[in-house]
């Protein structure tokens, strides 16, 4: 079994004084040309001869009993080769498995990919067809007769918690409550994280602020819809090409749902057109495999944008109560939160990480956070960039800002006075190692942005954020070719440039040129199990595996040189990309380059290939602080972001341009979450804005340049000091912007998004009150 030491004693932090040739530079990404020429193959870009088109019939009702499904007319239509319904999937018992930082339950996945007893949200898959053309597939869907008995629905989580609310799952008994409830409800779970005594903490406070907050579900809104091609042969061997953050995880889910051996499913990850957590789960893949298995022909399935919005996971909306107390001199004495997260149609909202993160940026003695996971008639939520954390930390960071104002203390100073640092025990348990929150705050305070003058109707906001980051199972192979180039085989799909940083680490370790290392994302049959790209783990975990594989190569190269020179292996050292005698006593030999050793590898023992199969440990959290200036248009309620600065601890930026890109992209997603994005439902329980025109993500003209400051407090558990960076940047924006609007208008918004109608209404109400 993999243990903490699996990464090897030699993969700890090497210290900052080693001179680095590649790490910290900005070379072009290996897949750059493919991506700018249109050559790169994304999920929908696979075409296979004889391929059928698969389509999904979706429930028009937010909640309905499925009394019967008659597919006979569809099956009789010429050109229809296969039809799938609930009858084609065996039931699964309740079993939670990891999917990124969230857990998924096979009982629920099988019901989410294909409705079983009931349709639980508008857009829930009810049947699927495969036909020889798009037009025939569409026609076939119309011929499927589903007898629904519509049931009352519930969209809001607080409504869903009421005793008389429509019940989604008749057997759901709230977990985590003592004694266990005797009646089923829509409340799946209660979680609690407590340290100290909050009552005593509030009693010691001079100021206590308590506020309620609401956030709306928002979608990851990756530009590439879900897409895959499945091909199952007559003997049950399956090929699956899919756009996914984790092809090994997708394989596991498909094998379980379809009763197939894992060895019979070979999954190739296509290039992935964005995921942000939303492509850690399966939707189309089991259907395409199931259809292909029936038809014995390849089946391609692609979601429309409408389907992406209605039937793939947004993240939770939430209702929250936050209470924070502090002394006059700015010492926070207690923090308390109640978090209600809606999970969509199946349990498993990210309320647990939300609860763990809520107060994590602060060194507090007294914390109590209670979270509730509540099901509603909406699509099942999926992970979205630091799942759960942006919601709870938004609410807490707003209260911290209000507290600073009440106490007359600069909001950065208040944070500095209470900031988590090395040795701080987080409310959820562990003690932090070296972390960079204080550094990010100090650099924010010293940044010219923080001193710049503001005009009328303008305001400035600040907020901090925390995310855990993860490691996990990872493989990598590094093949030394006979001409001295290298092939790097990876298992984490490259969602944003990780191939570059991983090749840089390989080149650094081997001492060869960066462009001599050519990466490939291997299919599931060509490399051992590797957990998905998520949890900000790709550069960290695959990086550790690459470093270990490279050190394996170096060991072998030294052995070969020793053999050639006929001296002991330990008399050979690797330096500057060459094998050298370790000292004067070892003998007098000309150093041999990697290429020179590779050229004669056949004569010294055969090919040189380095492997690593690890359970990456030691992922370190990343903290960040954001500064934002906004201007509010009092006529329209529109909030314009004028200036934005992200300061975040990266541990060590391997490729700083892609680290900056994570900071910038996360900030702008957060701007969308803060100002515009929301799922809007009608009273009929149907989504009213399932398209990019009405679900408005930020466009280029909505945002300014996003300035970045990369703080580097090395992670002691990584040779170069790497921390994951991808998720933390989406956490601070909502509070930073709410705080900036408050600074501009004197109005505290406690509901997201702060869209023009809401802002205008608040401005008008304030004017009326005056």
């Amino acid at each position, binding site marked *: 079994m993999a243990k903490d030491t699996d990464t090897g004693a030699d993969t700890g932090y090497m210290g900052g004084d080693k001179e680095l040739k590649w790490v910290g530079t*900005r070379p*072009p*990404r290996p*897949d*750059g*040309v493919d*991506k*700018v*020429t*249109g*050559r*790169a*193959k*994304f999920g*929908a*870009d696979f*075409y296979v001869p004889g391929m059928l088109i698969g389509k999904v019939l979706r429930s028009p009702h937010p909640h309905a009993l499925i009394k019967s499904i008659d597919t006979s007319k569809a099956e009789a239509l010429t050109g229809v080769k296969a039809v799938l319904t609930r009858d084609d999937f065996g039931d699964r018992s309740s079993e939670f498995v990891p999917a990124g930082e969230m857990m998924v339950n096979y009982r629920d996945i099988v019901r989410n990919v294909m409705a079983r007893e009931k349709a639980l949200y508008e857009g829930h898959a009810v049947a699927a067809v495969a036909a020889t053309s798009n*037009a025939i597939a569409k026609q076939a869907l119309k011929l499927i007769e589903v007898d629904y008995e519509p049931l009352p629905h519930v969209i809001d989580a607080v409504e869903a918690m009421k005793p008389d609310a429509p019940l989604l799952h008749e057997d759901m008994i709230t977990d985590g409550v003592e004694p266990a409830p005797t009646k089923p409800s829509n409340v799946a779970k209660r979680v609690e994280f407590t340290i100290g005594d909050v009552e005593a903490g509030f009693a010691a406070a001079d100021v206590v602020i308590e506020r309620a907050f609401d956030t709306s579900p928002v979608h*990851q*809104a*990756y*530009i*590439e*819809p879900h897409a895959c091609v499945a091909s199952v042969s007559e003997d049950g061997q399956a090929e699956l090409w899919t756009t996914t953050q984790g092809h090994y995880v997708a394989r596991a889910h498909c094998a379980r749902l379809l009763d197939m051996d894992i060895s019979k499913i070979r999954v190739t990850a296509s*290039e*992935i*057109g*964005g*995921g*942000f957590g939303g492509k850690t789960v399966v939707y189309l893949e089991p259907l395409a495999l199931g259809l292909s298995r029936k038809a014995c022909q390849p089946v391609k399935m*692609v979601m*429309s*944008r409408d389907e992406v919005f209605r039937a793939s996971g947004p993240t939770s909306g939430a209702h929250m109560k936050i209470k924070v107390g502090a002394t006059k001199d700015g010492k926070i004495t207690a923090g308390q939160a109640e978090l209600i997260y809606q999970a969509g149609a199946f349990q498993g909202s990210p309320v647990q990480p939300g609860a763990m993160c809520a107060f994590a940026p602060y060194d507090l003695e007294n914390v109590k956070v209670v979270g509730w996971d509540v099901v509603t008639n909406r699509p099942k939520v999926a992970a979205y960039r630091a799942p759960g954390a942006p919601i709870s930390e938004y609410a807490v960071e707003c209260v911290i800002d209000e507290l600073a104002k009440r106490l007359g203390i600069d909001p950065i100073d208040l944070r500095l006075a209470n900031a988590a640092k090395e040795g701080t025990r987080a409310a959820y348990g562990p003690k932090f190692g070296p972390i960079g929150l204080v550094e990010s705050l100090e650099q924010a305070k010293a940044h010219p942005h923080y001193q710049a003058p503001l005009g009328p109707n303008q305001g400035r906001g600040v907020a901090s954020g925390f995310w855990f980051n993860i490691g996990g199972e990872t493989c990598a192979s590094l093949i030394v070719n006979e001409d001295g180039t290298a092939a790097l085989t990876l298992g984490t799909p490259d*969602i*944003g*440039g990780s191939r570059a940083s991983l090749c840089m680490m390989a080149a650094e370790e081997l001492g060869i040129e960066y462009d001599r290392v050519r990466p490939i994302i291997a299919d599931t049959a060509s490399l051992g199990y590797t957990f998905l790209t998520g949890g900000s783990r790709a550069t960290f975990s695959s990086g550790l595996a690459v470093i270990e594989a490279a050190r394996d190569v170096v060991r072998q190269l030294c052995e070969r040189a020793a053999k050639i020179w006929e001296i002991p292996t330990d008399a050979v050292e690797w330096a500057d990309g060459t094998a050298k005698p370790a000292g004067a006593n070892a003998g007098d030999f000309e150093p041999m380059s990697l290429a020179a050793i590779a050229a004669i590898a056949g004569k010294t023992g055969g090919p040189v290939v380095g492997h690593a199969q690890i359970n990456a440990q030691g992922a370190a959290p990343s903290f960040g602080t954001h500064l934002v200036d906004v201007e509010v248009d009092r006529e329209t309620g529109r909030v314009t972001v004028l200036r934005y600065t992200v300061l975040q601890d990266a541990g060590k930026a391997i*490729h700083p*341009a*892609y680290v*900056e*890109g994570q900071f*910038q*992209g*996360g*900030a*702008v*997603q957060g701007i969308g979450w803060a100002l515009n994005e929301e799922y809007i439902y009608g009273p009929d329980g149907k989504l009213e804005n399932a*398209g*990019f*025109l009405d679900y408005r*993500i*930020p*466009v*280029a*003209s*909505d*945002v300014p*340049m*996003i300035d970045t400051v990369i703080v580097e407090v090395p992670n002691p558990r990584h040779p170069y000091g790497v921390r994951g960076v991808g998720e933390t940047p989406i956490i601070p924006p909502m509070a930073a912007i709410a705080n900036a609007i408050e600074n501009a208008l004197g109005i505290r918004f406690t509901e997201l998004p702060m869209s023009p109608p809401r802002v205008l209404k608040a401005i008008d109400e304030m004017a009326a009150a005056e």
Partner: protein
Amino acid sequence: MAKIHVSTTINGDAVEFLCEPEETLLDVLRDGLGLTGSKEGCSSGDCGACSVLLDGRLVCACLVMGAELGGCEVETIEAMAHGDVLHPLQSKFIEHAALQCGVCTPGILVAAKALLDKNPDPSETEVRYWLAGNLCRCTGYDKIVRAVLDAAADMRGS
């Protein structure tokens, strides 16, 4: 319904194809002609991932019917590089790390080229408003805008 026969010019080559009446230019490019550089992100003209030039005009290929293309000239991302020489915009996108996942990149490059063909010296604001029809969810647009401005400066200099 019978398929429609269309003769057109795509990336400088004479092309003939048959299409269903409801097929879009994007369907024809991707499914019919194997030109998958143009991406489908929404099929409603909101995301710009399928941006192409139609008789020199920037359009969303998902909003043009295939049957309308008779005698037209279509230019797609596949025609942007010449031989092994990338267009300066393509080079600058790589140099500036102006893409993460890269699925919006072809559409953004086609749109940016259309801008620079019209206006070789755009301001940052002009770039931002011109590209407002091209959604990118990864980058926050910062590096995209910088790459376009840098490419424009290079192209003016040469």
